[in-house]
C-alpha cells in the first residue's frame, strides 16, 4: 500500500495527536502485561518505562531511556499510542525512540538529565514530543524547541498532588495575567518570561497555550484527577499512582471515569469507592530540595 506520506511530522500532525488524547488518562507501565491492563482500563495511551518514578526515587542511581526490547514488547501488546521517555537533552535516546516507532517522546525530568544547559531540538524529529513545565516561560521555551504537548510537572513518584496543583495554577495564572496586559506591555512580558515575543503575543491574544496541556506528578486518586481537570488540564498522566496501588485495575478504571466526569460529584463519589489502598506516597515537603525532580529542566 503506497499512500501519500508527503506531510508527515508537520507541527499540526504532531500537535494533532495530543488533541485526540484530550479528556484522557495516560498511564505509566513497565511491562506488556501492565500495558494491557492500562488499555483495558480505558487509558488513551501508555508511557513505557523501566521503573515508575516512585521506584526511581526509592532506588536512586542514573535513570535512562528504557530497553528497546521492553518498548517493543509494549508496542506489540497494545493498540493505543505508546509513549516513552528520553533524558533531557539526550537527542540520541530520542533518535532511538523515533526509530523504535513510539508515538510520542517524553523529554522527561523523571530521568537523569543528559544536558544541564540545552534541551533537545525537537523540531528535527518526526515523532512528536511532550515536555514538562512548572511555569509559563518554561512551557513556551519547550514549545519553541518543538514540543507538541506540554505537561505540568508536579512532583513525580510522590502521590502528593500539591506540586501538580502549584504548577497548573502557576501556568494558567500566568496565561490569565498575560491576556490582561496591553500590547505595549508584552515586550517586557516576553523578556520576563524568557520566551519569544511572537509566541507570548499569541498566548496573550488567544488566552491559551498553542498546544494541549496535560498535568502530571502526584495524581493518585480519582479525586486528584478530577481536581486537575477542574483546574483546566486537558488530561492527566498517572505515573506510580496506579501500579503502586493495591488494585491497579479498579483504580485505573476509576481514574478514567473521573477524568470524563470531572464535574459530576455523584460519579466521582461512586468512582472513589472500593479501590483498595492508594499508593503510600511521600509528602513533597519531606523531600530535600536537591531530590525534587521538578527542578530539573529550565
Amino acid at each position, binding site marked *: *500500500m*503506497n*499512500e*501519500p*506520506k*508527503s*506531510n*508527515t*511530522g*508537520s507541527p*499540526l*500532525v504532531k500537535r*494533532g*495527536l495530543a*488533541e*485526540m*488524547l*484530550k*479528556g*484522557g488518562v495516560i498511564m505509566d507501565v513497565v511491562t506488556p502485561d501492565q500495558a*494491557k491492563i492500562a*488499555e*483495558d*482500563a*480505558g*487509558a*488513551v*495511551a501508555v508511557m513505557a518505562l523501566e521503573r515508575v518514578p516512585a521506584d526511581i526515587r526509592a532506588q536512586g542511581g542514573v535513570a535512562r531511556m528504557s530497553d528497546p526490547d521492553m518498548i517493543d514488547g509494549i*508496542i506489540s501488546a*497494545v*493498540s*493505543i*499510542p505508546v509513549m516513552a521517555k528520553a533524558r533531557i537533552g539526550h537527542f540520541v535516546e530520542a533518535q532511538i525512540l*523515533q526509530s523504535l*516507532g*513510539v*508515538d*510520542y517522546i517524553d523529554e522527561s525530568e523523571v530521568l537523569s538529565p543528559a544536558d544541564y544547559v540545552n534541551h533537545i531540538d525537537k523540531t528535527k524529529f*518526526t*515523532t*512528536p514530543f511532550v515536555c514538562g513545565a512548572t511555569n509559563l516561560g518554561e512551557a513556551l521555551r519547550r514549545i519553541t524547541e518543538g514540543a507538541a504537548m506540554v505537561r505540568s510537572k508536579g512532583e513525580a513518584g510522590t502521590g502528593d498532588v500539591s506540586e501538580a496543583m502549584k504548577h497548573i495554577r502557576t501556568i494558567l495564572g500566568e496565561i490569565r495575567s498575560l491576556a490582561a496586559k496591553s500590547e505595549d506591555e508584552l515586550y517586557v512580558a516576553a523578556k520576563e518570561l524568557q520566551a519569544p515575543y511572537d509566541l507570548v503575543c499569541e498566548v496573550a491574544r488567544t488566552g491559551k497555550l498553542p498546544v494541549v496541556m496535560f498535568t502530571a506528578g502526584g495524581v493518585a486518586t480519582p479525586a486528584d484527577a478530577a481536581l486537575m481537570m477542574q483546574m483546566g488540564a486537558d488530561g492527566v498522566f498517572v505515573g506510580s499512582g496506579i501500579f503502586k496501588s493495591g488494585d491497579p485495575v479498579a483504580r485505573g*478504571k476509576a481514574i*478514567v*471515569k473521573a*477524568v*470524563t*466526569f470531572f464535574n459530576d460529584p455523584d460519579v466521582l463519589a461512586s468512582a472513589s469507592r472500593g479501590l483498595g489502598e492508594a499508593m503510600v506516597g511521600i509528602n513533597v515537603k519531606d523531600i530535600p530540595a536537591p531530590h525534587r525532580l521538578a527542578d530539573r529542566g529550565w
Partner: protein
Amino acid sequence: MVNHTIGVLALQGDVREHVVALESLGCKVIEVRKPDELELVEALVIPGGESTTIFKLAEVFGMTEPLRKSIASGLPVLGTCAGLILLAREILDPASGQQSFGGLDISVRRNAFGNQNDSFETELSVSGIEGSIKAAFIRAPIVDSVGESVEVISTLPSGQIVGVKQGKVIGISFHPEIYGDARVHQLLIDTI
C-alpha cells in the same frame, strides 16, 4: 437559518474542535455524556480520540444501547477517525472487548497507516463539498470494505476509502475540524 441543536459525544477526544466547528455554523451544541442528553439533539458528532477509551466509557455509563438505538432509528451522525471506527459494522482489528455502535455497513482497520510517524496531512475531495479539503490523518483508520448501500464520498489517490455515507450517517478517517473547517459538519446538518 434554523438553529439546530447538535450533540458532540464528549466522553473523550477532540470534542472542543467539533464544538467550535458546529458553533461556527450557528448550531446550539450540547456535550453528550449521558443517555438523557442524547435525547435532546437532532444530530450527533462522534469525535476523534481513542476508540477503545470512548467505547469503554460508553459501556460504563450506559450509553452503548441508547446510541445503537438512536443511530438505528435514523439519528444523523458524523464520525471522524475514532468516530468512524465506532460507527462501523465490523472492526477488523479490535482491542480486546472493543465493539462499535453500528450505523455504517463497512469494515474498518484501525491505525491503518502505522504509528504516529506515519500520520500525515494532505488535501482531498469529498462528494458534496466544493473544492478540496485539508485533511489530517492521525493514526487514522481506513475503510476496508463497504456494503451495497454505502456511498463512498472520499478516497486517497491510492484508492483507499477514507469517507463514506449511508443514509444520514457519515464517517471519515481524517480530521477537517482541527483546521477549523466545518464543511463536513454542514453535510451532516443537511441530512436533518
